């Protein structure tokens, strides 16, 4: 679809949210929670944190929540009765006020869950989510979106994108059919935009720090470079913070929970950073030490995914680095791979 440009007044944003809600669309948006910013259901614009660079966690939970029921069953004398769980049981939702890297992060999840037999738990929720992103007027030292093919005004993955073009006006880019549909809900608040408007003037300048093709090639060649991975990860303590806040990490676990008569199987976030992730019951572990697990993190995103799924598993949002308790900075580590590895 050809993109359409409109103008929306800041002062009309509360009305826009009201319209979504009154027409039955739940709205998910960033919300201040003490020092962190969560993505949560909101009832009005007041609670939405539009002033922050990025929410602490990514927006992936809109389609891939940390805990999700995939099976339900009851036990009786005759055996087990399964009560089908409908993967498509979710509402059309507006994901509002996220950043371009959140929106484009879904393309990694789309690839993983869509490949082969498709995972409808994710796909149908994603399909029913309309993403309204805000371009970034500022960035910080952790951001490196422009080095991985994105950018502060990148529209890939967004259905609508808002850019602040003056104190009281937002440029609205209608990018997809889904976006078009959502824009009809507040069409009366929109006015025509001057098509000559230069969006780049209003967004942050994020410097490219490395050449992606080269990082991918060098990462791909580095499986056996134990020294590199050890050097980079010596301070890594093997938690799940980086993977859990990451918009593209998709790894999961299943766990059953039941009382005497009924039970559920839950799908839970998991991370390649945990030592248990690959531990065989025999005690053997193919990724025994943290440097091997760090290698997996980087190689999965920058070697395996580009080759197998034709998508780089990183949007350069820098969340992992902000969340890391020991300041493992992925931008710095990728730059080091670019500089240190020769192929």
């Amino acid at each position, binding site marked *: 679809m050809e993109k359409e440009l409109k103008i929306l007044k800041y002062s009309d944003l509360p009305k826009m949210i009201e319209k979504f809600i009154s027409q039955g669309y739940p709205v998910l948006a960033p919300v201040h929670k003490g020092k962190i910013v969560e993505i949560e259901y909101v009832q009005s614009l007041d609670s939405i944190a539009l002033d922050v660079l990025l929410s602490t966690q990514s927006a992936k939970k809109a389609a891939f929540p940390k805990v999700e029921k995939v099976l339900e069953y009851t036990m009786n004398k005759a055996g087990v009765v399964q009560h089908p769980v409908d993967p498509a049981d979710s509402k059309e939702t507006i994901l509002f006020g996220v950043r371009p890297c959140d929106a484009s992060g879904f393309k990694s999840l789309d690839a993983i869950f869509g490949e082969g037999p498709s995972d409808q738990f994710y796909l149908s929720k994603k399909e029913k989510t309309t993403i309204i992103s805000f371009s970034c007027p500022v960035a910080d030292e952790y951001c490196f979106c422009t080095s991985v093919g994105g950018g502060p005004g990148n529209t890939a993955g967004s259905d609508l994108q808002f850019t602040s073009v003056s104190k009281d006006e937002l440029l609205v880019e209608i990018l997809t059919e889904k976006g078009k549909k959502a824009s009809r809900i507040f069409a009366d608040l929109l006015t025509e935009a001057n098509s000559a408007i230069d969006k780049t003037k209003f967004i942050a300048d994020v410097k490219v720090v490395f050449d992606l093709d080269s990082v991918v090639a060098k990462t791909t060649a580095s499986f056996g470079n134990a020294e590199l991975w050890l050097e980079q990860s010596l*301070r890594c303590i093997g938690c799940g913070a980086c993977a*859990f806040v990451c918009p593209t990490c998709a790894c999961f676990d299943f766990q059953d929970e039941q009382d005497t008569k009924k039970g559920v199987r839950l799908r839970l976030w998991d991370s390649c950073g945990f030592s248990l992730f690959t531990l065989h019951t025999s005690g053997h572990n193919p990724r025994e030490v943290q440097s091997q697990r760090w290698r997996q993190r980087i190689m999965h995103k920058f070697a395996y995914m580009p080759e197998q799924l034709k998508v780089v598993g990183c949007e350069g949002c820098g969340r992992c680095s902000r969340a890391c308790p020991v300041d493992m900075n992925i931008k710095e580590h990728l730059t080091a791979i670019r500089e240190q590895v020769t192929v």
Partner: protein
Amino acid sequence: MNDLIKKVTQLLDDKTINVFIGYGQGTASRIRTIFVKNSSQVENLVYTSDCTANLAGYLLKHEVKKIGKLGILANDSALRSMMQLASEFQIKDGEVYVLHAAKDGSFTEFADFQSIEAYLVTIDTGITSDEQERIAKLEAMTVKERWIFWNKEFEKCIKCYACRAACPMCYCHRCTTDVNQPQWIPVASHEQGNLDYHLMRAMHLAGRCVNCGECANACPMDIPLNLLTYQLIAPIRTTFDATAGMKADAVYALSTFKPDDKENFII
């Protein structure tokens, strides 16, 4: 600072140690742990008032230990962690070279555990006044209010286990959380799973927590977890006259019966 650099250079050059665990400059204004393996890397060491992290946890990391003989820049918290770890047979006297960084920025070498113990009795091992205030607030709450407070905090938890990974005392080879026969703690990060995990962790740290605050600092979701374990410090002290991380040969208060133990809390 120059003293530190000179000292570490000498330690590495004369092979007293193979790696020195200290602080370096991190992203923007953050401080991070660095591992100095030769004298050319010594210049990367920094020491400022922001160097508050407890580095003792790295003394147990397999890949760090494999480098060889370890030296560490230990602040007060790290010293206490080391004493607690020693009392739990995780580190031995003489195994680690200890350079102590005092709050005033001076550095002292500690020759053995005994000298660390002697130093520790001279310092204030209590929690900060800010933390005291927060705990007082919690204790002033009704049980129901406190329950609501913690449930609200735990709601944010994503079970990334950064708190456990950051805690020098959470070194168990297989944490209770990871045991699945039986499954003591629900793995899921839902209400029950989060609550059970945090209560279990707090209980396992009762009498062992050295109030360094690493767990809360590590938490990406800004949950003040340290208050849970800190709340247990006072009762352990008054009931058993025990403070964690003061003596390398201490016996663990909660697993040792002494005839003069107070028993009034049982009934």
